């Protein structure tokens, strides 16, 4: 989008003497957006591998019918914590890390607006997740009622219950502070001339996501606080015996939970909108309509939560409302998919790793979107609810959707961060293995769900064996291929061919980050660039 005047790009930081602190102090007391972004991304990668290990254990248990490895309670602890770690520990911190790195560089700001709060919002996370993971080792074990924490089941959690609630509070506080930082940075720190419509799509997607976060994370915090008082202080918010209503928890949870889904996908939309034009060598088709589409999706995400609760029983009018409003989301999402396709249409395409991940996203996220439309249909949902079809649906949205976008973003901006090109061959191996195995892993789960296999069970009827074996093989393959991702990143950090400031030569990528040298200097845009 916006390009600065040539004279403004030459001297962004050269007269600056501030150097990073050395040793542990650099990271503990970090206020630099690049350092904090790096910490978020490394933390997210570690959580991705921990959550992924849990997924591999789950797939190992499901490789054949019968109980092989774990007792059912531990299996349920694995599924619950796999979800919590992947959502709050892997996907969300990865997007916050990307926001920290890229938003100031894309809008021409020297740093985030609130650098000390930025430090605080990161450093809460290691404590939150240490607490969450330690619940696996306390008497009674970790939470096993699913990440949705529905009472009364979640209230039966053992000694770990208050630890879980406190961990969720800390994650929420971290996210809210991160969101506040993003909003005030974008609203106040843009370089002169960088008006909102010139702002790159990644910043736009994050701006809207940050508003979603501020609206819904406190609602989750309120819901789990009420669970806590129901558990320890004899309140009956969700206890039917005391006059409360367990279904009310579901309403409150999904008022948070559905926008949360979009919190995990809107920044991915922003990333894809950056990568596709670069490697198509064309401007993004319908850039303004992309912004309106993101805003429409964000608005609709607040009025569709009931579609998670069709089988609870609700008035016909409510069923119809939630069904129609959910299907309406397909309209702005369709606008985006067609715009991305039109961006590539008659473009001069090249297929570097970021582009491969973006194209894979386009196809596979759309599969997840289609199964989502199927699940929005009330009578269809009655049949598919609580089956593996739902598991297949949301994993298609989150793995080749959110996670592929994150990987595409890392491959897109990594040379800008480290100053080195990475091994294209290894990255392409990572891409192809991931894309093949992710389909082997999740596509058969549609068949299992349609055949009636329930989710969240460690054992199943013999008729489901074959597709479970295929799915598990895909799971092991996908998990192991992620080692390549870590190898590519480590190689690029340690050395390699020097990257130019433009990185993707001949592609004319847009955005102010490409006007900075590679690696980007520790302090960038200390003098604001002028955008004509």
């Amino acid at each position, binding site marked *: 989008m916006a390009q600065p005047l040539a004279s403004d790009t030459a001297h962004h930081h050269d007269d600056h003497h501030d150097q990073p602190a050395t040793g542990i102090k650099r990271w503990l007391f970090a206020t630099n957006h690049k350092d904090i972004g790096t910490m978020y991304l490394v933390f997210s990668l570690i959580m991705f591998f921990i959550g992924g290990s849990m997924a591999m254990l789950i797939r190992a248990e499901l490789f054949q019918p019968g109980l092989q490895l774990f007792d059912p309670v531990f299996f349920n602890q694995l599924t619950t914590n796999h979800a919590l770690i992947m959502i709050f520990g892997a996907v969300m911190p990865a997007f916050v890390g990307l926001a920290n790195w890229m938003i100031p560089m894309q809008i021409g700001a*020297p*740093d985030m*607006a*609130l650098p000390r709060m930025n430090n605080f919002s990161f450093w809460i996370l290691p404590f939150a997740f240490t607490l969450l993971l330690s619940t696996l080792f306390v008497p009674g074990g970790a939470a096993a009622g699913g990440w949705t924490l529905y009472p009364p089941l979640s209230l039966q959690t053992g000694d770990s219950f208050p630890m879980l609630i406190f961990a969720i509070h800390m994650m929420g506080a971290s996210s809210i502070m991160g969101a506040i930082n993003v909003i*005030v940075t974008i609203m*106040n720190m843009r370089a002169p001339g960088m008006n909102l419509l010139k702002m790159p799509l990644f910043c736009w997607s994050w701006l809207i996501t940050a508003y979603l976060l*501020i609206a819904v994370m*406190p*609602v989750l915090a309120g819901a789990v606080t009420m669970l806590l008082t129901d558990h320890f202080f004899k309140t009956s*918010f969700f206890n039917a015996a005391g006059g409360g209503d367990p279904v009310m928890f579901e309403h409150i949870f999904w008022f948070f939970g559905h926008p949360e889904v979009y919190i995990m996908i809107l920044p991915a939309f922003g990333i894809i909108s950056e990568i596709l034009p670069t490697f198509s060598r064309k401007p993004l088709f319908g850039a303004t309509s992309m912004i309106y589409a993101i805003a429409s999706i964000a608005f609709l995400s607040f009025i569709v939560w009931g579609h998670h609760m069709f089988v609870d029983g609700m008035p016909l009018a409510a069923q119809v409302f939630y069904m129609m409003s959910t299907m309406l989301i397909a309209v702005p999402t369709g606008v985006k998919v067609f715009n991305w396709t039109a961006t590539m249409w008659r473009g001069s395409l090249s297929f570097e790793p970021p582009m491969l991940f973006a194209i894979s996203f386009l196809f596979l996220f759309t599969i997840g979107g289609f199964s989502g439309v199927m699940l929005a249909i009330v009578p269809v949902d009655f049949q598919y609810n609580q089956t593996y079809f739902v598991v297949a649906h949301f994993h298609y949205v989150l793995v080749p959707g959110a996670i592929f976008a994150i990987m595409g973003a890392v491959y897109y901006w990594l040379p800008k961060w480290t100053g080195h090109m990475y091994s294209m061959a290894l990255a392409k191996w990572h891409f192809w293995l991931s894309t093949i195995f992710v389909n082997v892993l999740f596509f058969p789960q549609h068949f299992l769900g349609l055949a009636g296999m329930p989710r969240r069970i460690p054992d199943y009827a013999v008729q489901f064996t074959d597709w479970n074996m295929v799915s598990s093989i895909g799971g092991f393959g996908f998990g192991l291929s992620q080692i390549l991702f870590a190898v590519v990143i480590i190689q690029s950090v340690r050395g390699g061919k020097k990257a130019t400031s433009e990185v993707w030569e001949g592609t004319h990528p847009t955005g102010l980050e490409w006007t900075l040298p590679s690696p980007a200097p520790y302090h960038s845009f200390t003098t604001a660039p002028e955008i004509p």
Partner: protein
Amino acid sequence: MSAAGTQKPPSVRRRIRNGALGLMSVALAFYFGIIVLLIYRSHH
């Protein structure tokens, strides 16, 4: 030198502070609001 590496003009500092406080108030209102709503609902 501020933590951000540059000194922001006072007007920008004020807008950042007001923006952050405003958004924090919204978050707290949602947090307490949902709890107060449920307490109200269970008494009436």
